[in-house]
């Protein structure tokens, strides 16, 4: 069985993102970039499946600029066997979920994986769309927001984190599974693995060589900082807190 894992290069989750003064985007120059944390969890799950003997090969795929090779190399160091970068022109702006899904579909057609593991959202655009779009275009099941995945031969039983609690569904394979935070805790990469990863194959394909072009129909007209909350007031005692709350009509 082959597993495809998608990796997105995003601003590291510890960075406090700032909007550029001219409102044309967010500051990414000199900012630490990482694998989207949810995608890291997706890859960890794939590696565990392989370690358990349920999968033979893990292919990591990214759609984006040449710089995404860094994140793919990290993925290889974590334990993926091969990497594919579908390269886009940086000038076209952030890759839209539809473009990413279309590119992944092309790779699926070449690779024929049994499972596609993805993050449930990317922490940059927070769209939470790509996995579901891909599953629809592939005409295959989707199991989103997974906190537990159990493989049973030709199907998978997936527990999903939903607003009301936990929901379990069964999907026939091949399927797209998007993962939530509590599925697992990704391993740390060890130095020898980073060295070894340099020798693993990483193919680069231009987006247009797949017969695709970037969808640019949505116009990201302007970016702004969120309104600031005027916090900061402290009270000295529980009684003072209660008095303040009463004054505000909250008690």
């Amino acid at each position, binding site marked *: 069985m082959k597993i495809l894992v998608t990796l997105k290069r995003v601003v590291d989750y510890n960075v406090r993102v700032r909007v550029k003064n001219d409102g044309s985007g967010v500051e990414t120059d000199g900012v630490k970039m990482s694998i989207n944390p949810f995608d890291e969890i997706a890859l960890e799950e794939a590696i565990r499946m392989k370690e358990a003997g349920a999968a033979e090969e893990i292919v990591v795929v990214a759609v984006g600029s040449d710089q995404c090779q860094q994140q793919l190399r990290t993925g290889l160091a974590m334990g993926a066997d091969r990497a594919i970068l579908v390269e886009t022109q940086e000038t076209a702006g952030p890759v839209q979920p539809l473009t990413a899904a279309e590119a992944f579909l092309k790779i699926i057609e070449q690779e024929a994986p049994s499972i596609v593991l993805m993050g449930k959202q990317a922490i940059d655009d927070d769209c939470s769309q790509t996995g579901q779009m891909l*599953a629809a275009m592939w005409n295959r099941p989707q199991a989103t927001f997974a906190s537990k995945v159990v493989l049973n031969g030709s199907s998978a039983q997936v527990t999903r984190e939903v607003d009301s609690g936990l929901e379990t569904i069964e999907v026939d394979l091949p399927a797209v599974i998007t993962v939530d935070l509590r599925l697992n805790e990704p391993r740390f990469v060890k130095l020898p693995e980073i060295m070894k990863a340099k020798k693993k194959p990483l193919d680069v394909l231009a987006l247009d060589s797949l017969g695709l072009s970037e969808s640019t129909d949505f116009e990201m007209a302007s970016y702004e900082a969120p309104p600031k909350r005027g916090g900061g007031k402290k009270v000295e005692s529980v009684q003072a807190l209660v008095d303040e709350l009463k004054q505000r009509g909250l008690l």
Partner: protein
Amino acid sequence: MTKVLVIAEHDGTQLSVATAKAVKGAEGVGAEKLDLVVFGNDPASVSEQAAKISGVDCVRVVSGEDFAEPLAARMAPEIAKMASDYSHLFVASTTFGRDLMPRVAGLLRLNQVSDVMAVLGPRSFKRPIYAGNAIVTVNVPETVATVLATVRTASFAAAQMTGSATIEALESQASDPGHTRFVGREGSSGEGPDLSSASRVVSGGRALGSADAFKVIYGLANTLGAAVGASRAAVDAGYVPNELQVGQTGKIIAPDLYIAVGISGAIQHLTGIKDAGTIVAINKDSEAPIFEVADLGLVADLFEVVPELEKLISA
């Protein structure tokens, strides 16, 4: 013509408040016609509730056994088939809507606007990105046949329930692909107010240290008639179930009063409470980032002050 279809969310018996909020958000596009679609096995009662949402013209009902559970794989093809009648499709940005709408978008090969927080015009929206650290204005050109969007429920009040829409039965137009099967569901006891829509919320963090210690949070919440929430750290540690998580990857809420107890205030948590009325923070570290956003901060040991707070309130 601006014709809007909103997808209703329900649990089989009760229409979700998120639906009335999605309608409120959708109204902003200046709809000349606004319909709602309800999927269900026996959705008669839910459809009647839906017909009361002000602003809705027609509730279209697709019923059948394969709609007994909200499976995106089953509903999305139906919605995609209905899409040509509408200029806009909306759904609440709950786990239901976030699972479903992008599948519709994939079938239609269209991009989607997620988590709409403000409607500036029929094709212009604001939405949060980077855990709410930036807000982008997205314009959808006329060349895009249908605008697909999910509505950030914390940004909109629920539409009134004084309407009287017509109810129309609709034939299912697709068949069950059969590849996705519902197995089961487990959820909270359903005691106390619903976290997503409660006007008061008391949340606990890692500082609580155990499920047992979380009782002080439940105690205070009870006294206040508040819902209980939690940070990711508290959920990960197993103190409380996942549906209580507040934040970027949990629930985005807008209560009048939010009390954060033993929560440091990571950006991923704060994004879930940006629209709260008054934020109260109780934390023993005066440097904790939660105090930067808290309207009222109390630097103290939670185990000392929370029981005292509960006592003073109930006095």
